[in-house]
Each structure stands twice: as structure tokens, then as C-alpha cells.
């Protein structure tokens, strides 16, 4: 506060900010990027730990014996699925009833705004089947969900088989304190959306569905199971949900703890953890894992069937079995035991999962970066915008006439069309653009850090540098290359590269187009916010900057 009362020092600071503005900005930008890249370096990250006492201190025994029988059930399911040409509803209902569950069905239909070419569907009509295991002496107030999607092709039959096997085994146990819902959903996310909306009696997406007949109180946690082979080499955990929401970190910890206890290889983003963090390869591996998470989170789409649960404040994750060419295989019994262990611990929960983090990035399954560590990376980028704002505010020209400025703000689009403008005009416009971008990116980063950060990396340099006095052709090209649309294109290429499935330019372009259409579909089906955010808020901001470049 000495600054306020001391005109000399204030003047010195102003001079410093005005004169060294550009170097400071460059330093901030580089520091932001460096900070972000440093997050994946193991000594800088924290080791995950179980925060929830109810899940940590008590050990449970896993005794699920019936993996082979579950696979047989899965094959039977596959046969009936082929015969029925879709969900074998009657067979599922009967099988679940035989296992002592209360079984209900829900039919739904939805017409997409335009045909989905990836999954080749337009008019979607399906039936969800779910069975409720009523916990003995429990008043139907709490529930857990285990779901498996019924895919149209020949995958995921083992998941349904294991789900039914677990249902049979769970039904014979006395220790359940929460009801367990076994859900087989058709048309993956659309079916899940219909079921969740039916369960909570809401209608966000304009879906047609029949109301649910049976409920089991408030759902505490959910696991979605995807399993397409009889044996697996590893289990992959998928956390990213709708709009970049993540489940409580304790759910990931729980999965990791049981994988280690039972001896199943577990991955996140399809990447195994490496122990050689101090080598360049080890570090690159961690960066790749984290970058994949950032890109997936930024996309705002649910990456597994669990993704829609998060909106309802239900902690959920997808467990996906991967069968690669490794020697070491895990059988279904072991996967069943792992799920049994997780469910028994979730059953022990006295409160909702709330102890651990909700905002985190994971460079590996045993390491995490909490919000306090990754936010400075974004903060450094956002500082650049504020520094540029201060530069424009401290400019003596700006004090002259506020009335004029208002007029300029209001008429700036007109000016652009009529092609007249003043030096002061574009400064005001840039000031507005900078402030707008700072607020927009700040809010985005609070909700979805990854999206905010990726947008900041490309938009902040543009916003910081753009003036009408730059060479027009070169800067126009640079601006186009740094536009939100191109950012998505880069993300597509980087994502493919990180997944070790590089694509050619034309393939990349096709992928880019499908990503765009997927984004629009996600918005209309599930209420994903990325598409409206980019189209209605970010893109106009970029246009403002374009406006400044071509100011006359």
C-alpha cells in the first residue's frame, strides 16, 4: 500500500510496467508453459492416498469364484443378442429374476438432430434393463450402480456376463447396506442418459422415455464395466466425464488399491506407470499421460458411460478391460474379485465420497496434481492479459474522453464495416477484448481447467500482440492458425500422436470434422457446454481481435 501513497514509487512501477511490459509477458507465457510441463515431473507431484476412512481402514475379502460361469452367461447373452438383433430384453429380465433381483425395464427413443456417422444412428430406440438387489434390512435410501453397455456389435458380452455373475454372487451375501442396481443399458450413452433422467425424473435433453418403476434412493457411486475378451492383460480406468467433470479422487484410489492388492495391471489413459521417472523417457511418458487427460477433459465429452452420472453428483468411473499382446493375462474371476472388493468398500461408505479431490490431473495412477498446483500455470497465462490491460489503461491517451470511448465500443462493428476509426478506438476495443477474454478464460478454467488452459495457450498470444500496425498478411495468417477452430485441429493431431495412432493429414481432417459434429451432438444430447462455449463466446472474442487487426 506504500505504492498508493508514494507517488515516486508508483511512477516507477508504472514505468516498469509500461516499458518492460512485453518482456514480462513473454516471461509469463514461457513460465506458464514450463510450469505446466513441470507438473508431470514426479518429484513435483503428490502420491495418491485414500482420504476416506470408511474405505481405508477396513479390509475386505474378495471371494468371487464364478468367473467361468460368468463367461458362459456372457456367451449365452451373446447368442440371445444375436437372435433378438439387439437387446435380449426377455432373456435378461428372466435371468436377473432368477438371480433374485427386482427387475424393471425402461424403453426410450430419441431422434438425433442429424445422423451420427461414427455410430451410424439417427433414430434411436432402445430398452434399458435393470435389476435391483435389495439390501437386507436397509430402507432403500442409498444405492450403488454397476452398469454394462449392451453394444450392437459383438463386444461387451463378457461385461454383461460378469455383471450377471456378480449379481448372483452378491445376492447371496448378507452384508450389503446399500441397494445395488445392475443396469444393462442399450445405445451406450443415450440409454444411460435416458435411465439417469428417468431415475431423477428430469428431462434436460428432450428424450422420450417411459418412467422408471423401481428406484433405490440416492445413488452414492457407480461403476461402468466394459469387457470384451475372456482374458485381459490390464484394466484401464476412465475418469473424464461430461464437461470435464471428474469423480472424487478416492474412487481412482480405490481402483488402484485393489489392482495392487489383487495383482492386476492397471492403466490410466491406456498407459502403464513407469518406475524410471528420473529418465527422459519416464518423464515423457508421464507428460504424455497427463496431456491425454488434459485433452480428454478439454473435449468436454463423456469418455465412458460413467460420464453422465457426474452431473447428478454421483461419483462414477468406467473400468475397461484391455487385451493386448502381453504375456501376463488376468482371468474374469480376478476381475470379478476386484469389482467385488470395490463394491464392498463402497458399501462401507457412511457418507458420500467427498474427502478427496474433485479437481486434479493424473500423470500416472499413483500420482496426482491437485488444483493448487496446476492453477498457477493458467494464472501465469492470465496475468499476460492483465498486464496488457494495465498497459492500455496506463496509456495517457486513454484518459481523455470516456464518452467517446463508449461511443466507440458501441459502434465498433459499424466502424469495421464503414472502414473508419481512430487510434484511440482500437485501443478501447482491444481493452474490451482483453478484459472479456480474461474473464471468459478465467471462468472456463475454474470449471474445466484443461479447456481454459488450451484456449489460453493459443488465444493469449493473439490477444496480447494484436494491433492494427502489424503487417496484415502475416498476422492474419498467424491469427487464423491460432483460431479456436485450428486449436481443435491441433488437438486432434496431438491426441492421435499421444495415443500412438498417428494419422495422415486427410485422415486428421476427417477426424476433425467428426469431432466437430460429435461436439454438436454431445451438446444437443447430453448438454455438453464446449460447443456453445466455443461458438458463442470464444469465437466472437477472436473476431474482436480480428477486428482490431484490420482497424482503419
Amino acid at each position, binding site marked *: *500500500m*506504500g505504492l*498508493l*501513497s508514494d507517488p515516486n514509487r508508483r511512477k516507477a512501477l508504472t514505468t516498469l510496467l509500461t516499458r518492460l511490459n512485453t518482456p514480462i509477458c513473454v516471461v509469463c507465457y514461457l513460465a506458464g508453459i514450463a510450469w505446466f510441463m513441470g507438473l508431470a515431473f514426479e518429484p513435483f507431484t503428490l502420491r495418491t492416498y485414500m482420504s476416506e476412512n470408511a474405505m481405508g481402514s477396513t479390509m475386505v475379502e474378495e471371494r468371487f469364484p464364478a468367473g467361468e460361469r460368468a463367461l458362459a452367461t456372457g456367451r449365452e447373452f451373446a447368442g440371445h443378442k444375436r437372435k433378438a438383433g439387439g437387446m435380449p430384453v426377455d432373456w435378461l429380465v428372466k435371468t436377473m*429374476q432368477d438371480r*433374485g433381483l*427386482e427387475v424393471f425395464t425402461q424403453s426410450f427413443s430419441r431422434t438425433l438432430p442429424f445422423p451420427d456417422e461414427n455410430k451410424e444412428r439417427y433414430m434411436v430406440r432402445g430398452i434399458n434393463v435393470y435389476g435391483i438387489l*435389495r439390501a*437386507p*434390512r*436397509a*430402507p*432403500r*435410501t*442409498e444405492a450403488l450402480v454397476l452398469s454394462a453397455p449392451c453394444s450392437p456389435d459383438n463386444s461387451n458380452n463378457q461385461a454383461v456376463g460378469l455383471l450377471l455373475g456378480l449379481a448372483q454372487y452378491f*445376492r*447371496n*451375501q*448378507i452384508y450389503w447396506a446399500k441397494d445395488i442396481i445392475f443396469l444393462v443399458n442399450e445405445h451406450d450413452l443415450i440409454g444411460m442418459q435416458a435411465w439417469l433422467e428417468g431415475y*431423477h*425424473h*428430469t428431462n434436460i435433453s428432450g428424450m422420450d422415455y417411459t418412467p422408471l418403476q423401481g*428406484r433405490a*434412493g*440416492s445413488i452414492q457411486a457407480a461403476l461402468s464395466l466394459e469387457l470384451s475378451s475372456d482374458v485381459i492383460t490390464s484394466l484401464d480406468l476412465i475418469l473424464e466425464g461430461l464437461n470435464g467433470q471428474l469423480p472424487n479422487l478416492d474412487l481412482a484410489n480405490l481402483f488402484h488399491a485393489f489392482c495392487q492388492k489383487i495383482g492386476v495391471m492397471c492403466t490410466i489413459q491406456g498407459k502403464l506407470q513407469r518406475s524410471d521417472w528420473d529418465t527422459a523417457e519416464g518423464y515423457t511418458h508421464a507428460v504424455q499421460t497427463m496431456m491425454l487427460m488434459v485433452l480428454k477433459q478439454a473435449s468436454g465429452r463423456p469418455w465412458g458411460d460413467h460420464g453422465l452420472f457426474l*452431473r*447428478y*453428483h454421483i461419483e462414477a468411473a468406467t473400468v475397461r478391460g484391455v487385451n493386448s499382446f502381453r504375456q501376463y493375462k488376468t482371468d474374469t474371476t480376478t476381475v470379478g474379485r476386484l469389482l467385488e472388493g470395490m463394491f464392498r468398500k463402497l458399501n462401507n461408505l*457412511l*457418507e*458420500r465420497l*467427498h474427502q478427496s479431490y474433485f479437481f486434479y490431473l493424473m500423470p500416472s495412477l499413483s500420482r496426482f496434481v491437485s488444483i493448487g498446483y496446476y492453477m498457477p500455470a493458467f494464472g501465469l497465462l492470465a496475468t499476460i492479459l492483465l498486464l496488457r490491460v494495465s498497459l492500455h489503461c496506463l496509456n495517457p491517451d486513454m484518459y481523455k474522453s470516456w464518452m467517446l470511448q463508449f461511443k466507440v465500443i458501441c459502434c465498433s462493428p459499424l466502424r469495421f464495416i464503414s472502414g473508419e476509426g481512430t487510434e484511440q478506438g482500437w485501443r478501447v476495443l482491444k481493452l474490451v477484448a482483453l478484459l472479456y477474454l480474461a474473464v471468459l478464460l478465467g471462468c472456463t478454467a475454474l470449471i474445466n481447467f484443461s479447456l481454459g488452459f488450451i484456449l489460453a495457450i493459443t488465444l493469449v498470444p493473439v490477444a496480447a500482440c494484436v494491433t492494427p500496425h502489424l503487417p496484415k498478411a502475416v498476422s492474419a495468417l498467424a491469427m487464423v492458425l491460432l483460431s479456436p477452430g485450428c486449436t481443435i485441429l491441433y488437438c486432434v493431431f496431438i491426441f492421435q500422436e499421444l495415443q500412438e495412432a498417428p494419422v495422415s493429414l486427410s485422415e486428421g481432417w476427417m477426424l476433425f470434422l467428426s469431432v466437430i459434429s460429435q461436439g454438436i451432438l454431445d451438446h444437443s444430447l447430453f448438454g455438453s457446454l464446449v460447443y456453445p462455449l466455443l461458438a458463442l463466446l470464444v469465437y466472437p472474442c477472436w473476431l474482436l481481435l480480428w477486428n482490431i487487426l484490420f482497424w482503419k
Partner: protein
Amino acid sequence: MTSGCFVARVAFGVDARVEKPNDVTGPVSSSEPGQSESAAVSSGGPVAAPVSEADEPAEAAAGGAVSPPDQCDEELVLRPLRSGDIYASFQFRTQWDTDFLHHGKKVSHYRLFPKSLGQVLSKFSVRELHISFTQGYWRTMQWGQPFIPSPPGAELWVWFHNTVEDVDGNWKELVNVLSGIFCASLNFIDSTNTVQPSASFKPLGLGNVTDHRFLRYATLPREIVCTENLTPWKKLLPCGSKAGLAVLLKSEKLFHSSFHSQAVHIRPVCKDWQCTSTAWELRQTLNVVFDIYTSGQGKKEWSLFKMFSRTLTEACPLASSSKVYVDVTDNPEGELFDLSPVTPLLSTAVVLGDRRTYSVYDLTKKETFGQLRSLNLVLRWKGESGDMLRPLLHAERYVAGFGLQTGEIHTLIYNNHPYRAFPVLLLDSVPWYLRLYIHTLTVTSKTRENKPSYIHYQPSKDRLRPHLLEMLVQLPPHSVTEVTVQFERALLKWTEYTPDPNHGFYVGSSVISALVPSVVAMDTNSTQERPLFSSFFPTKEESSYFVRVYTEPLLVNLPTPDFSMPYNVICLTCTVVAVGYGSFYNLLTRTFQVEEPSQSLAKRLANVIRRIRGVPLL
């Protein structure tokens, strides 16, 4: 065929009962005029008048014996359920022939009636007391109607005598005393969860007091019931758990079940046929459902030993009747299950609007126990477990919506009767921290608005009393009636949160009371003698029977602060105050002066000298 849906339903109002030799070849017919005596059932009397109280005294009088001052009866009903589960319902009735209520005299002589309860009755001028502890939710769709329904958790409702002046004071003391007697957290009942229903809970005993100022009703949906509640309950029995049916009540088996409910009901009843004098009736009931999957160990076979790890060897010596009933209605040919040993006694009764046949085992008779001197009923399932039932009336409730600001409570009431409409009374008691928007209350049946003919709504007062909503709704035949009301979640003060705030807050079950039309044709050949479990709720007319249905309780999350936050907040606030306030204060109190250009050396020297001299500076 509609009867298939209703076969397994059982009710209270037993209208007829015939004992005849076991005839397994033909269907059991109940109304054989030669054997049944007709009796004038007090159907024309007041609603509250019990219909079966006079059985035993009348019988005793007929036998010419002098009726003892107190008497007790015990009874166990076993009902094999369609799902393969088994429902065991114990009832113990103790009658106390005293009448302190009318004369105001002090009673200090106790024989069979527990003294602890007797003292409570007289001290707090209680007219009727009903308390139940339940662990689990009764699955109406699988199990049909229970004999005595109860909501999950603890439920307590009391009618005070109309001479009581300070009802609230009495109630407060009473719940604390009961809390001690039953080792339960009943002391958490206070004004914030007590209501006075205007219509749903009428006295079940003698007397026509209907002024609901003397009624208090409260539920604790969170109450966990366990062995510590069972032990004091067993101590109230005349034989304790030493003899009679009560030897079966071993907690390690009772709590290895799908449903457990124990209750105590006290009410004044008529002592004799003409109702010249009254007595107190204490009815202790215990209902358990054993699950075939978790307790059956894979075999579809039930036995007393398997269920309770005990067999029966004798009746309670103090009991005047001691019987075991097994529901064999669905099994006339023995195609569903085998029951052994076979009993020659059969009894038929209309229970919950449905005619049921029971095999009766009289424990007071020696031959019941056979040569082994122990009775171990064995029930072997032969058939497949059946589908879900469609009870005439059932209900469910859930919270709709997401987020922590608002929500909507949906109550669905199903009338599965094919052609008859009937009214139900819906009672909802919602805690104050869910602020009901009563203007959003809608009742719809078959997509049309269904205007309740009676609404009693008492708004809540923050931290003082809950919302009370009572409605009389007509349910159209074969329909679902949906009652919705929106609410807003209140922000509590930080001390008002429970120790586990992220678990959520409970909202007690809604209560639906109804006279459901009976599917059984009117039975004209009513006999006087009837089992105890059938005579709990009075039936106004025999074409309908009284049912009380409880919905599931709700678990609602309220906006919960992060309770580790105060530390952070304190740190942050202190820093902000220290830095911000300090510098602003500095700024505000400082005086600013224009700095003078530097003085000449001579002047400075002169000033030094002047300062030493103490004269003002230049």
C-alpha cells in the same frame, strides 16, 4: 383371472374361522354351516371399537371357569412367500384388568403386565401408545401386505387422555422415559419432528376421542434397530425369553434376515362382551422375513431350527393360548411345498381382504410335540418362486431433480383394483429444512388433475416444527396417482449439521391409510373365535379392510460446507485483515505534506541550535 394377483395378500380383519379335520384331497371350504357359529360382529359399533376383544373372556365364561385377573396369549404365524422367502410374525398379548384411567387411582399391583410400562401409562396419562422399531423396508411388491405395517426406523404415536393439560410437556417426558426403556434414541424426538395428524391416526382402542390435540406422532427414520433394542423388548414378555414362543427370539438369527420389525402397542379394550369393564391390552409384535438366498444356504427348505436355531418344546406356562399358524392357502394340494409334521387342525380366516387357510399347531397340547418332545416345523419348497405381486394399494416415493438448491418430492400411489375407486389419506411430515413450496403441490391421476377433497396443511417454522400435509385423495380404479411438491434446501447453521453431514438428511416415510375394497365376497358365517393377528385394525365394513402403507424414507443432501474450511478461512481472513486493514488504516491516518526543497547549511545549523534551546524552528 384377477384372483391370481391377490391370492397372497393377507389382512387383519379375520371374519371367520373354522376348525375341521385336515382334508388334503379337496379344497378347504370355510363356511360349513354345521360347524361354524354365527356371531354378531360389532360392525355397527363405532369405528374405534375393537371387534375381537371379547373372544377369550366369552369362551372362559362359557366354560364356567373364573377368568384370571390378567391373561396372556402368544402366537406365531409363518407365511411362505411367493419369492421363496418366509415371513414369521410373532404376537404376544397381555391383558391387564385394571382401570386406573377412569378412577384416577394409583395401581401398584402388577402380575403379568410389565411394571415399567404400567407406570408410564399412569404417570403420563397415556390412553394409547404405539411404538415400532423397524430395520428394513417392507417390500410390498414381493411380500404382499404385512399384518402390522411399520416404517423404517422408529415410529411412535401416542394418544393422551383428554384430561391432560400440558400435552407437549408430557410428550417430552414420555419420549425420554421410553428412550430409556427401549434403549433407543427416542430422545431425539422433539418439536421439530413431532406432528399432530388430524385424520390419519385414530385411536384403535376404546373411546371416541378424536380431538387431535391429544395425539402426538413422530418418526425417526434414521434409527438403527439392533440387539440392544430387542433385549428390553423381550424383557416385557411374561415368560421373558425362557419359555414358549419367545425361545425362538435369538438375535443372531433375527438379525440375519431381510426385514426386522418389533413393536409395542398398548390400548384400552373391553374386558367382556357387554363392555361393562375395560382392560389394558399390551400387544408385542415382532415381524421377520428370512431371505432364501442369504439364509437358505442354497436349499429351498425352511424349518424352525434353520430360521431360529431353536425348536419349540413347550408353551409359555403363563399363556392361556399358544399357537403356531402356517399359511397353507396357496398350497391346498401340497404342490408348492411340503409341510411336516402334518397337523389335523385347519383354520380359515379372512385376513386383509383375502381368505386364508392356516394349519394350526396348538402348543398347549402335548400331542403337538410328538414323540421327540419338540416341534420343528419343516417346509420344503417344490415349486418355482413366483412373479412379483400386484398388491391393490402400494406406494413409492423419491426425490426428483439434481443440484443442491431445489428438488421435488414425488409420491406415487398405485390403485391396482380393476374397477373400484377408493379414497386414501396421505400424511406427509417433512422437516423444516426442506422448505416446501406448497403452491406447487399437484395431484394427478391418469394425466388429469385430481383435487383432494380434504387438505390439512401446517407450514413449518424454522427450527421449531415440521411441515405437516394431510390429504384425502380419491384414487381412480387401476391408476397411478402422483403427488408432487417442490422444495428448496435450506442452509443450516454450522452447529445444526450432523456429525456426518455428507451422508444426507432423512425425511420420514409418508403414511397412506386407506379402506381398501376387499376382493373376498362378504362372509356371513362369521364366528366369534378368531386369531389375534387378524383383529388389530377395526374393519368398518367387511367389504373393505384397513391398510396402512408406508413409503420409503428419503435421503436428501443439503448444501454442506467444507468443514475443514474454517481453518483456511480463519487464516485467510486474518491475513486479509492484517495486510488490507493495516495499510488502509495507515493510509487514512497519515498526513501528507509537500516536501520542501533542501535547506541551506546555515539554516540547518541554526535549527539545530534552536532545537537545543527549545525554541520553535525556523
